[in-house]
C-alpha cells in the first residue's frame, strides 16, 4: 500500500545506514586517510584557518520533500516497549528532531495504561549516557566493527566445526522472538546451551507453583478485585518490576470521592520497611525467620485442613501482633474469593507454598488470581545457573557468550575467576561493566530505544518496540548479533535488522483487525485464544513445608537476640544495572529518603543493642564475606533485623555509579550473620531529616468510617481564617486558571513523578556532596512523615510537594527585580533571564519548593548528554532560582494544538509530566475555570484542603486528605 510505503520511508534510512557501520563516528582510531584525502584536508584546514575569524557559514536549505518525522519544533511520539529483565512496560517515546527525549506510559497498553516508573523515565538518560561502551574491543584494545564481527564469527565457526562447548549466558528476556532466536542459535551447535540469569527472579514462586499446582509459572494477580490484601514481605507497590500495573490496580480500589466509597484493605507483614508496608492500613514488622511461622499460624486460624501440631506457635511480642493475626484471619475469612495473599518474589519456596495454600483455601483462584493469564516468569534464577557455574569452574567451557546482564557483579569473585579461565569469552553489553572487564571480545549493545523488540508482558498480550533513533554507536541489539552470527555459521549474508523487522511485522497478523501501521501506532496486540488453567492444591507440598519448619524449630536459630539480615532489590538501581543513572542515584529512597547510598537500616532498639548511632559503621559477616555498611536508624523494623538494598557498590559502573554504596551480593544467601560495630563514620545524604508532622496542618487523615460521618474533616480539623485584604476584589482570571489536585489516598510515594519531572524539565543532578548540603534540585519531592501513634507499628504519610502556584504568592512580592511573577492563567512563573539570585523568594516560600543553582550544575555535561535535554525547557545557569512551572511548555503546546485544530481546549489534553507518569492517577491537572474539568470537580470535594491553609497564600494545588481503612478491631491502637 502506498501509505505504508510513505510511512516507512524514514525507517529505510535507518536500515540502510545501520547496515554500513559508521566507523567514523564510532571513535575508531584506525587511520585510513589516503594521500589525496590528506592533501585535501590540509588545503581545507588552511582555508578555514584564514577565514576562522568569523563564524562558519551555514546555509539553510529547504527540504525538497519534507521528512515525515523530525519536524523541527514538533514532538513525535512512537509506541514502543521498555524491557527490563523478563518484564516490560508499554511506553510512548517522545522524540524531538529525531532524538528521544522523554518516555511516557502507553495509554493503549492494558497493563501500564499510561503509568510509568522511575526506571522507564530514566532510560532516556541511559541512552545518552557518555559512559556507554562506544566501540568493540578485543583484549581492551579498540577494534573496528568488521574486525570484531569477523573474529567472533570465526571463533564460533571454529567452535561449530570442532564441536566445542559453547555456552550463552544472557540476562532474562520476555521477548518471544529473542527467545526463539536464542533457541535456534543454540540448536545450530552440537554442544551449546543457553542460560538466562537474573539475580531477582521468580524462581521460588515458580517452584512453589510447581509443587502446589504442578505448573511452574506465575499467574496474574488482580489487586483491583480484592477487598482484603495480605502482603507477606512483598513490595508490589515499590521495588517490583510490575509496580506501575500493581499501583494502578491497587489504587483503583482506594479512591475516595464521596461517602458511598468503598476501599480495599491492605495488611502488610514484612521484615523490611517497604513502600507496600508504608501504604498498608495495618503493618506488622517481623524478623525474616518469623514470616513462615506467621503464615502457617494464619493458615491454621483459617482452616483445619492440615496438621497444625507440627507448627511452632507464633511468638507474639505485643498485644498488637496478637490482635493483628486474629484480625487478618477474620478479615480474610469474611472476604473469601475477594481476598489476596501476595508473597514477596524473593521469599522462600516454602512461604510461597503457604501463600498459594492460603489463596487456595480462600477461593481466590479464578477470582483475584487469574486462571487464564500468567505474568512472565522463566527459569532464570540462581538455581538455573548452577550447572553453568560448575562447568565453568571445571574449565569445560570453550566459548562463553554473555549478552547483557552483569554476572560478574551479581555472582562475585568466584564467577570472575571462572570466567577468566574460559578460552574465548565474548560479551555484548551496554556498558564496559565488571563482566566486560573480564571478557576478551566485547562489543556495544544497542539500547532499547535504538532497536526493534517484542515482548509478551502477559499471556496473550504482545507489545512491540521500535527504534526511535539510529544507534549512537556501532552497536547491535542482542537479536541482531545472534542473527548475524547464525548467518555467519552458514556463511550467509543477512540483513539482521530486516529479519527483526519482519519478525515484529508478523505480530500484525496475530489479530484480524490489526494492520502493520496500527500495530506500530498502538504498540500492543492482543490475542484471546487462551484456555483457563485448573488450580488444585497439592497437600503434599504443604506437608514438606511443615516438615521443614518443624526441623528448623528444633534447631532453634531464630531467637530474639539473633541478628537477621533482610536484603531487598533497590528501588533505584534495581540489581545494580542502573547504577550509572544519576537521576536514579539521586532519587531519594521512597521510605528512608537516602540518596547515593545503601545503608544498614535498623530500628532504634537494634542500634542500642549494637551500641551504634546514626552514620556509625557496622560490619556484617556471613558466608566468609564481611561487609562494612553505614548505620541508618529507622522506625518500624523488628528488633535485631538489619535491612539493606542490593545493587550498590559497583566497581565498573561508570563515572557516576562506580563505588557508590556497598555491594551486598556476597550476603545474598546469608544465614547466621554476625554483626559488630567498627570504627569510622560515613555520611549518609538524605533529603529529609525530620519525620514528624508536629501536629501542623500539612497532612490531614481520617479513617473511612470517620470520613463517612464527617466528609469535610480537614476543614473541621483546621481553621482557615478569612482573609481581610486592603484590596476589594481578588484578581479575576478571565481565561484559564490552572490548578492541580493531588490525592494523598492514591499516592503511594513511588517517585515516578520525581523522575518524570527530572526528565521533562532538564533538572540537573548535583551529587552526594551537594545533597548533603541540602542543595538537591528536584522540583518535585515526596515528603514522608512517620506517625508513631501506634507505638508497635509506625504509620507513614507520603505527600508530593511541588510549587503550589499560590495566588497570593509570598515569593512574588519579595523579588527586587520582578523575576518571579504571576501569569494571567494563575501560574507562578520564573523568569530565569531576569533572576539575579537574591534567594529571597526561596526564603519566603512556606513550602520550600524553590531550588537555587548554587553552582553551574550543567558545567560538566558530556556529549551526548545534551541530546537528551528537552529543547522546550531552558537549561539553567548558575545563580538562578528555579522551581516547578506546572510544565508551562506543555500548557503552551496544548493551547497551540487546540488553536490549530480550531477547537476550545479540552480537559485532559494538557498533562503535566508528573501527572502523566503517575501510575496511581493521584495527580490531576487542569483548568479551574472550567466547572466540568476533573480538576475542578476534585478540588471541590469535601476532603480537599490546602497545605498551610491558614497562611492564606491561596495555593492552586488542592490536596485530597488521606483516608485509611482501619479494621475496627485494630482501631484502638491508632487512637
Amino acid at each position, binding site marked *: 500500500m502506498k501509505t505504508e510505503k510513505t510511512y516507512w520511508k524514514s525507517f529505510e534510512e535507518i536500515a540502510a545506514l545501520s547496515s554500513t557501520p559508521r566507523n567514523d563516528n564510532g571513535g575508531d582510531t584506525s587511520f585510513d586517510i589516503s594521500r589525496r584525502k590528506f592533501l585535501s584536508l590540509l588545503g581545507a584546514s588552511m582555508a578555514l584557518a584564514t577565514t576562522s575569524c568569523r563564524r562558519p557559514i551555514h546555509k539553510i536549505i529547504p527540504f525538497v520533500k519534507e521528512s515525515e518525522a523530525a519536524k523541527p519544533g514538533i514532538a513525535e511520539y512512537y509506541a514502543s516497549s521498555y524491557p527490563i529483565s523478563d518484564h516490560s512496560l508499554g511506553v510512548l517515546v517522545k522524540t524531538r528532531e529525531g532524538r528521544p527525549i522523554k518516555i511516557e506510559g502507553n495509554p493503549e497498553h492494558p497493563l501500564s495504561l499510561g503509568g510509568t516508573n522511575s526506571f522507564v523515565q530514566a532510560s532516556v538518560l541511559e541512552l545518552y549516557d557518555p559512559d556507554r561502551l562506544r566501540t568493540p574491543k578485543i583484549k581492551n584494545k579498540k577494534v573496528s566493527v568488521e574486525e570484531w564481527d569477523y573474529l567472533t564469527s570465526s571463533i564460533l565457526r571454529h567452535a561449530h566445526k570442532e564441536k566445542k562447548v559453547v555456552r550463552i549466558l544472557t540476562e532474562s528476556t520476555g521477548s518471544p522472538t529473542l527467545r526463539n532466536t536464542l533457541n535456534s542459535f543454540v540448536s545450530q551447535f552440537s554442544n551449546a546451551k543457553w542460560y538466562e540469569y537474573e539475580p531477582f527472579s521468580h524462581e521460588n514462586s515458580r517452584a512453589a507453583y510447581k509443587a502446589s499446582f504442578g505448573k511452574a509459572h506465575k499467574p496474574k494477580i488482580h489487586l483491583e478485585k480484592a477487598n482484603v490484601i495480605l502482603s507477606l514481605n512483598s513490595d508490589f507497590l515499590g521495588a517490583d518490576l510490575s509496580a506501575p500495573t500493581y499501583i494502578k490496580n491497587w489504587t483503583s480500589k482506594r479512591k475516595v470521592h464521596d461517602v458511598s466509597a468503598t476501599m480495599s484493605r491492605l495488611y502488610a507483614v514484612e521484615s523490611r520497611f517497604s513502600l507496600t508496608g508504608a501504604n498498608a492500613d495495618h503493618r506488622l514488622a517481623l524478623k525474616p525467620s518469623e514470616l513462615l511461622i506467621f503464615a502457617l499460624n494464619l493458615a491454621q486460624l483459617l482452616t483445619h485442613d492440615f496438621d497444625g501440631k507440627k507448627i511452632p506457635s507464633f511468638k507474639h511480642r505485643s498485644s498488637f501482633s496478637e490482635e493483628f493475626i486474629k484480625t487478618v484471619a477474620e478479615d480474610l475469612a469474611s472476604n473469601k474469593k475477594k481476598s489476596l495473599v501476595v508473597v514477596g518474589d524473593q521469599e522462600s519456596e516454602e512461604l510461597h507454598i503457604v501463600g498459594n495454600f492460603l489463596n487456595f483455601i480462600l477461593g481466590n483462584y479464578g477470582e483475584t488470581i487469574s486462571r487464564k493469564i500468567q505474568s512472565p516468569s522463566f527459569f532464570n534464577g540462581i538455581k538455573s545457573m548452577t550447572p553453568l557455574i560448575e562447568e565453568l569452574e571445571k574449565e569445560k567451557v570453550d566459548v562463553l557468550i554473555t549478552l547483557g546482564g552483569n554476572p560478574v557483579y551479581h555472582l562475585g569473585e568466584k564467577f570472575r575467576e571462572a570466567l577468566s579461565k574460559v578460552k574465548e569469552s565474548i560479551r555484548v553489553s551496554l556498558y564496559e561493566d565488571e563482566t566486560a572487564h573480564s571478557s576478551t571480545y566485547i562489543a556495544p549493545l544497542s539500547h532499547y530505544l535504538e532497536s526493534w523488540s517484542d515482548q509478551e508482558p502477559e499471556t496473550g498480550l504482545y507489545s512491540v518496540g521500535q527504534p526511535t533513533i539510529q544507534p549512537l554507536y556501532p552497536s547491535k541489539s542482542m537479536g541482531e548479533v545472534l542473527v548475524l552470527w547464525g548467518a555467519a555459521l552458514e556463511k550467509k549474508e543477512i540483513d539482521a535488522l530486516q529479519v527483526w523487522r519482519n519478525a515484529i511485522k508478523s505480530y500484525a497478523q496475530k489479530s484480524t483487525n490489526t494492520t502493520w501501521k496500527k500495530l506500530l501506532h498502538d504498540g500492543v496486540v492482543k490475542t484471546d485464544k487462551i484456555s483457563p488453567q485448573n488450580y488444585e492444591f497439592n497437600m503434599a507440598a504443604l506437608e514438606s513445608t511443615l516438615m521443614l519448619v518443624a526441623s528448623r524449630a528444633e534447631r532453634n536459630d531464630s531467637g530474639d537476640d539473633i541478628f537477621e539480615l533482610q536484603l531487598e532489590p533497590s528501588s533505584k538501581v534495581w540489581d545494580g544495572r542502573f547504577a550509572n543513572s544519576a537521576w536514579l542515584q539521586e532519587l531519594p529512597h521512597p521510605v528512608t529518603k537516602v540518596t547515593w547510598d545503601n545503608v544498614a537500616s535498623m530500628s532504634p532498639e537494634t542500634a542500642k543493642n549494637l551500641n551504634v548511632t546514626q552514620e556509625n559503621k557496622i560490619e556484617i559477616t556471613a558466608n566468609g564475606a564481611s561487609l562494612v555498611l553505614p548505620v541508618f536508624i529507622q522506625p518500624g523494623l523488628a528488633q535485631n533485623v538489619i535491612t539493606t538494598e542490593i545493587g550498590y557498590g559497583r566497581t565498573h559502573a561508570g563515572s557516576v555509579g562506580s563505588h557508590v554504596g556497598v555491594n551486598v551480593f556476597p550476603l545474598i544467601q546469608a544465614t547466621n550473620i554476625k554483626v559488630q560495630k567498627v570504627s569510622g563514620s560515613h555520611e549518609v545524604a538524605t533529603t529529609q531529616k525530620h519525620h514528624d508532622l508536629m*501536629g501542623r496542618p500539612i497532612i490531614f487523615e481520617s479513617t473511612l468510617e470517620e470520613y463517612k460521618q464527617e466528609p469535610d474533616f480537614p476543614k473541621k480539623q483546621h481553621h482557615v481564617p478569612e482573609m481581610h485584604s486592603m484590596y476589594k476584589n481578588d484578581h479575576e482570571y478571565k481565561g484559564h486558571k490552572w490548578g492541580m489536585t493531588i490525592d494523598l489516598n492514591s499516592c503511594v510515594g513511588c517517585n515516578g513523578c520525581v523522575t518524570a519531572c527530572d526528565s521533562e524539565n532538564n533538572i540537573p543532578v548535583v551529587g552526594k556532596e551537594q545533597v548533603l548540603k541540602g542543595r538537591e534540585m528536584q522540583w518535585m519531592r515526596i515528603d514522608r512523615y512517620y506517625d508513631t501513634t501506634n507505638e508497635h507499628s509506625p504509620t507513614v504519610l507520603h505527600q508530593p510537594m511541588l510549587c503550589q502556584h499560590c495566588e497570593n504568592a509570598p515569593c512574588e512580592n519579595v523579588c527586587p527585580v520582578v523575576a518571579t511573577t504571576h501569569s494571567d492563567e494563575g501560574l507562578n512563573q520564573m523568569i530565569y533571564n531576569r533572576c539575579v539570585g*537574591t534567594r529571597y523568594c526561596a526564603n519566603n516560600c*512556606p513550602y520550600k519548593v524553590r*531550588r537555587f543553582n548554587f553552582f553551574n550544575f550543567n558545567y560538566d555535561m558530556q556529549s551526548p548528554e545534551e541530546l537528551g535535554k528537552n529543547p522546550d525547557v531552558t537549561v539553567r545557569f548558575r545563580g538562578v532560582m528555579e522551581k516547578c512551572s506546572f510544565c508551562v511548555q506543555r500548557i503552551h503546546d496544548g493551547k497551540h494544538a487546540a488553536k490549530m485544530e480550531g477547537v476550545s481546549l479540552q480537559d485532559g489534553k494538557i498533562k503535566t509530566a508528573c501527572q502523566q507518569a503517575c501510575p496511581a492517577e493521584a495527580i490531576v491537572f487542569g483548568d479551574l475555570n472550567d466547572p466540568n474539568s476533573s480538576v475542578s470537580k476534585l478540588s471541590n470535594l469535601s476532603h480537599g484542603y490546602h497545605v498551610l491553609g491558614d497562611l492564606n497564600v491561596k495555593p492552586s494545588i488542592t490536596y485530597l486528605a488521606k483516608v485509611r481503612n482501619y479494621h475496627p478491631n485494630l482501631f484502638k491502637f491508632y487512637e
Partner: protein
Amino acid sequence: MNNTQTLDILGNEPLVLGHQTRSEITEMVARPLDTFPNKKWFIAFLVAISILAMGLSCIGWTFYNGIGVWGNNNPVGWGFDIVNFVFWIGIGHAGTLISAILYLFRQKWRCSINRAAEAMTIFAVMCAGLFPLIHLGRPWLAFWLFPLPNQMDLWVNFRSPLLWDVFAVSTYATVSLLFWYMGLIPDLATLRDRTKNKFKKTIYAILSLGWRGSMRQWNHYETAYMIFAGLGTPLVLSVHTIVSFDFATSVIPGWHATIFPPYFVAGAIFGGFAMVLLLMVLTRQFFNLQGLITMAHFDAMNKVILVTSLIIGYAYTTEFFTAWYSGNTFEFYAFWNRATGPYAWSYWIMVSCNVLAPQLLWFKKFRKSIPVMFGVSIAVTIGMWFERFVIIVTSLSRDFLPSSWGMYIPTQYDVGILLGSFGLFFTLYLLFVRVLPVISISEIKGIMKHSAPVGEKDDV
C-alpha cells in the same frame, strides 16, 4: 591630670581636661597628620590590609564558582552574607545618631567623638553595602537592583523590601557622607593652613571649599549643619526599620513580627555604640588623646549601651511572650527552637553578650574602667552579630514543613569574607586616622573651658 578635674556648677565633669590653649588643641589633633606614621600604625595597617586581601580572594573565589562555595542551602538561602550585611548596617547607626540626634539634643560630649563615629558609619555602610552585591547568584547583574531606564522597559519591583533596602542604604550612605564632609570643612581649612607640603595643601585647599572662617561662613555652616542633622535624624530610624522589613514583611515564623522595626533600631544603636567605644578606646590610646576623649565621654556612651541593652532584652522577652500568647504553633516553635534547638548555642551567646554582659555598666566603677568597657563592647559586638545569625539562620533552618528543615554550616569562605569585611573596615579607619583629624578641631574648641561667655554656658 586628674588633679585638675573640677566639676561645673551642674556637677558635670569637664569634657576637655587640662589647660590647653586653642592652638595646643589644634596641635594635639593635627600633629599626627604631619608626621610619618609610626611602627604601631604600620603593623596594624599591615594586619588589616592582609585580612582584607584574604577576604577579597574569598569573594573572588565565590564569583568564580558560585554561591555554592558558601554554606547557604535550601532552606537557609541567606547565611553569613545577610547576617554580615545587617550587622554592619547596624554598626553604621551610631555615627549618625551621635552627630545628628545628639547634636539636636545639644549633647556637648558628642564633640570629641562625632568625627570618628561618622567615619566609622561610612566605613560600616561600605562594608554592609558590599554584601547585598556579593550575595547575588549573578553578582555581575547587581546593577539590575537599581531602577535604571532601559530599552526593555524592565523596572524594579517596588513591592520588594530588598529594593527598599537599596534606596534606604544608598540614601543613608549619601547623607552620612555629606554630613561628615560638611563637618570636616573647617578642619580641612585648618589643615590646609598648617601644612607645608604642597601636595597636601592643594588637596586640603580643594576639599575645604575656600573656608576662611568668617562670621558669615560660620553662620551658613551652622545652619546647614542643623539642616543636615534634621535630615539625618529620621534616617537613623528609617534605615534599620527598612532593613527589618526584609524580615518583618515575610511569612517566615521568627521573621514575621511587628516588633522588628523598633527592636532593630535599638539593636543598631546598641551595636553601633559598642563599636564607637571600641574605636575610641583604641584611638585615644594610640594618639594620646586622654585630654580630649575623657572618662566622661565613655561614661555617657556606656549609659547609652546600658539603656539600649535593656530595650533589646525587653524585645527578646516580648518576642517570646507574643509567640506563646498568639497560640500560633509555627511562631511558638520558631522561638522555642531558638532557645532549645540545634542553634541554641548561638541564641545563648546572643543573650549573654547582649543582655547579661552590659548589666555590669550599672556600676559607675565599671563605666569608667577601660578594660571592663572594652570587654563589654567586644561582647556586644559579638552578641549583635549573633543576634542577626539567630534571626536569619535559625528561623530559616526550621520553618513550616518539617520535611524541609535543614542545617546551615558555614564554610571557610563565609568566615573569610566576614573577617575580610573587618579587614576592610579597619583598613579604611587606619587610613582615615592618617589623613583626617579624628577629633573635630573646631567643635572641640567650642566646648573648652572659657570658650563660652560666662552665663551662656549652654550655648554651643
